């Protein structure tokens, strides 16, 4: 084992199907975590919009969740939810909350008072004002949060290999570190990094597409 080459490209060719499967699993786990995280965060942000006093407690709790090391969180959850996808996702979702709630709230609060007043004075209902005016204007800040949450989650998914999940983390930890097989480690790391960069660029592209007005602003300055 010690005399094997440091990097064996032919292993990648031989195991494309396994690698592909892990990559797909990684994408799925990230999507579920960020998707559910976004929904929960939206609900919390709307709650804060209605009852601003809840901002402190909600940020406090999501900040505490964010501070718990992932290993410790698994240790707490496994006795309850087992070595399951649910355990992994609960952990991943709770890590997205702090960033997402904070950015959604900041985005909505960033809509200037005169715009809100104009919208109300023109006869938009509360709901129309939120959907047609405030959320679209908050979108750049919300998507900025989404980019950070997504990149963070892509990194964290690898850790869930410790409870038998993990996507690309499986390549890094199970076939890589545990079996002293560097090729697998590098493959997993490279793909995880590439995935993070791609997801970030895709979200940036999405933001450009959805907020052409934000460019008009910077272009005019």
């Amino acid at each position, binding site marked *: 084992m010690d005399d094997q080459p440091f990097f064996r490209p032919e292993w990648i060719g031989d195991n494309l199907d396994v690698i592909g499967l892990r990559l797909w699993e990684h994408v799925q786990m990230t999507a579920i975590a960020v998707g559910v995280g976004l929904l929960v965060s939206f609900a919390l942000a709307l709650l804060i919009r209605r009852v601003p006093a809840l901002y402190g407690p909600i940020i406090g709790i999501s900040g505490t969740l964010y501070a718990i090391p992932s290993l410790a969180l698994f240790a707490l959850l496994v006795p309850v939810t087992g070595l399951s996808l649910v355990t992994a996702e609960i952990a991943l979702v709770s890590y997205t909350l702090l960033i997402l709630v904070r950015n959604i709230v900041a985005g909505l609060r960033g809509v*200037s008072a*005169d*715009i809100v*007043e*104009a*919208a*109300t*004075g*023109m*006869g*938009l*209902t509360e709901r*129309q004002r939120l959907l047609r*005016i405030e959320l*679209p*204007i908050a*979108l750049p800040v919300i998507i900025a949060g989404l980019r950070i949450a997504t990149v963070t989650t892509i990194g964290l998914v690898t850790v869930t290999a410790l409870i038998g999940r993990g996507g690309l983390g499986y390549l890094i930890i199970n076939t890589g570190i545990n079996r002293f097989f560097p090729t697998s480690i590098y493959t997993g790391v490279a793909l995880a990094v590439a995935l993070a960069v791609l997801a970030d660029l895709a979200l940036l592209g999405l933001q450009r597409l959805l*907020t*052409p*007005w*934000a460019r*008009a*602003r910077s*272009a*005019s300055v």
Partner: protein
Amino acid sequence: MSIIRSVSSSAGGAVVALEHVTKRYGDADAPAVDDLSLTIPAGEICVLVGPSGCGKTTTMKMINRLIEPTGGRITIDGVDVMSLPAVELRRRIGYVIQQVGLFPHLTIADNVAVVPRLLRWSGTRIRERVDELLELVGLDPAAYRGRYPAALSGGERQRVGVARALAADPPVMLMDEPFGAVDPIRRDRLQNEFLRLQSRVRKTIVFVTHDVDEAIKMADRIAILQRGGILAQYDSPDAILANPASPFVERFVGADRGLKRLSLARVRDLELIEPVIVREGELRAEARARLAARDGIDYALLVDDRERPLGWIDAGDLAGEGPVPAEAATPGAPTVEPESTLRDALSAMLGSSVQLGVVVDERERVIGLVSVDAVGEALRAPVRAADGTLRPVGESATG
């Protein structure tokens, strides 16, 4: 198109009436607005003006229920504003604020189309209305329709704000310091443009400002409020300047209120003095005789063959025989137009030696003279109040 044209040209506002309106915040002792009653006739601009804390903005916002009154009644054409759902009421009232509040994520066309969309107009009708309104406020629809607010200057945004408020052709418009964020030169232009626009659309406009000069310029009627939301005076600008109802109003309109009144009146409002006209090339003896025949005037006005003024000429200049040459005149007669304000006319006259202004028509032909005395007399003439009565200057409206 013809239907929409007729909608926008349907001159007409609605009567806005406030009856004993009071606004109290929480359990504060002093009300923000106290038992305020005033009626704004349809199609007029009523400017609410006063120092900060006088409740002018609160008063305006109670009309579209951004603030709910604690007492009294507000009606638009007899309909109590509280009898309608607030959002429906607001869609029928145009609203313009100081920072304009254009929606940055919507194009100019979409900004203007906000209320028509809420009212579920058809796409074609909205498109036509947007183009019509952009033209109305002096913006080329083809160039501006697709732009975002960030790409516009302050003045352009302000015009879009007005177009947006007019979109659904509301009978009433509320304007909260609409030109406050624009520099003075552009503000003057926007004010003039807006007055021209108003002469076409004839909305009932409630206009809030803290600037008394803006109030005098824009208003058909001014409501001066003092701290605590008390109505200090409600009358035409000229009547307020001529007869302030209280020491507070007198201080608020300023010590130069006489001069401010001069900005309200125009040369055409004066009775012009008939000049002694001497034509270039006329015989001196004839001219002398005509000048001598007129009492109280020592100068004749020398004009050229097209009746354009050349300058003043006196009996000494006319001595001798032969025709009067153009060079005989002392140049420097200030010319004013019938449309000039008395303030501008007075300023021109004070700067010249004879202190008479020559009123000329659009072809620069002499039509008469104005004197400094005549301007002074105009200031002393009785003033017509908003209720139609004539009152001598200096007499307080409330006695």
